[in-house]
């Protein structure tokens, strides 16, 4: 009975979010958030399957989309389930990724990051999808004990996405600023070095390469976040 109710609520949210006006969208978002909070209370108990079942309704929509535009509710769900919130336990990023991978058939193991990024090509979903991506990366980074593998998990799909059509512009607009703000200075330096920005105290010129535009985008974000500074006599980083 509860399982059926879960299914109805998930389908209602998914179906109506896309066509809803602002007020209804907000109401559906609140419903989703409250329902997740209530279900999360069962996480430690044997009934945690209810939460997984609810989440799977949304993840399946993304998995089945094959790159087509999906309901915004999917990303709102991902963002709120991984976001740290007082008073309710969250689902770990790894658990969410495992849950998504379980949707794959046979040897096919879908990547949650890749599929979220593919939705950035749809203008209506770009903002929500990017928020879900950043929330997931932020959660992953806060949980990961070994930084390198966790970096590969999200950085590899991001690199593939950036290399694709309009990828750099979309990443520049929707992903990079909030991503580097969330992941912090240390991660920023690791990523820009991975993308070819070399730090050298003796060299004061820039060299060109295929990735120069991406590197410049990263440097711009770095300057805006205060990770990189201009050379002013009095502008010393505190």
């Amino acid at each position: 009975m509860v399982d059926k109710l879960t299914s109805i609520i998930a389908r209602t949210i998914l179906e109506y979010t896309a066509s809803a006006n602002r007020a209804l969208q907000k109401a559906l978002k609140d419903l989703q958030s409250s329902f997740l909070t209530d279900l999360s209370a069962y996480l430690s108990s044997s009934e945690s399957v209810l939460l997984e079942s609810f989440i799977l309704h949304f993840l399946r929509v993304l998995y089945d989309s094959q790159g087509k535009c999906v309901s915004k509710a999917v990303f709102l769900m991902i963002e709120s389930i991984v976001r740290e919130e007082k008073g309710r336990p969250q689902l770990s990023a790894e658990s969410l990724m495992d849950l998504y991978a379980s949707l794959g058939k046979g040897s096919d193991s879908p990547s949650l990051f890749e599929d979220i990024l593919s939705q950035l090509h749809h203008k209506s979903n770009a903002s929500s999808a990017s928020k879900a991506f950043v929330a997931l990366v932020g959660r992953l980074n806060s949980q990961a004990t070994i930084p390198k593998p966790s970096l590969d998990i999200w950085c590899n799909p991001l690199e593939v996405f950036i290399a694709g059509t309009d990828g750099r512009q979309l990443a520049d607009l929707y992903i990079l600023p909030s991503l580097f703000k969330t992941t912090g200075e240390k991660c920023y330096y690791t990523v820009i070095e991975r993308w070819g920005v070399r730090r050298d105290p003796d060299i004061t010129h820039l060299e060109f390469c295929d990735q120069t535009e991406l590197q410049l985008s990263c440097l711009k974000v770095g300057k805006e976040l205060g990770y990189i500074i201009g050379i002013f006599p009095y502008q010393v980083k505190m």
Partner: protein
Amino acid sequence: MLIVSEERGDDRECVVLRAEAIRSLLVHAEPNMMLSALAVLVASGASTTKIASSVYNTVKDALHDLHEICDGDLRNQFMKIMKDVFQRVLSSSYIANRSRSRLVAFLGSDKTKYTKEDEEAIARHSTTMDAAYEFTSYYVDFLTSLLQPGSPHSSCVTAIDMIMLLCSAGLDREIFDPAESKRVVSTRRVVPDILNGNTVQWPFQISLATATIRQLLLENLFNPYEDIRKKVFHFLQVARPFSRLEYSEILQILERDLNRVSQSGRESDVDGFSKLVVIFCIYSGEKKLALPLSSQMPLPDCNSTHGISTWLLNLLKQEISSLHPGARDLRRSRNLILGTLSALA
């Protein structure tokens, strides 16, 4: 591979991007690359952070290439970056001016009591303001040069947009004061507001309605490109740089441009003349001024906008009545009638 230099501050590592290091990218053949480099150069976490003189100089060197970007989307990107630049120029110079004034007020007028640190602080604030003024002044002159007849379409469009932007920021409050924008632009927000609702005012003023700029704007009202004519028309409607014009000057302009229409008969000239008449109608209507009599084209006893339209109608009647199969200058009359009708429409 892109390289940034790393320096060590007093107590911790910091990564520094030198303005000089990015200079080569600002003259790159790809406009995308140029804009990305410019964005990096002027990016800052806070709009009140002062812009270093090396950055000003680097931007100045690249201005010519940046204003020749033809692609519309990229031009919009460039405008956005320049908007951020002037937001910083405005905010940093405002802060510098305020800090200097407060310091001087606190220390008093007796300069012999100033410590070395006080003098250095005052000098630093003055340098920030001077650099901001020098750059803005240079940029306005540069934009003026882009309005010259024969300038490429892209340069001209960007120059008009940038003048509008600076105008909307209140750089010349005599022709557009953002604080009074609601009064001037009654029903809709016509000019993008650089200040985003902020009431910060420039610590210095630079005229955007000099005789040269006015002359060049009027010339561009007859530009062969329709979008340029529309932009200039829009700007002249909103900013009113002609509020300082004397009556005799208005008349001279009207007569000169009517002659231009009658001689060329080009569509762009006819369109330009009609726009010019609309602008002067708005202006004379606001000021409640009557146009003086002209020796060549007698005006009726007229007041404000009604006066201009009456003048045009009389002109039209006069031209039509002079038309007959044996008239010597039929082409001139045709153009004149066309221009007058268009202005009346």
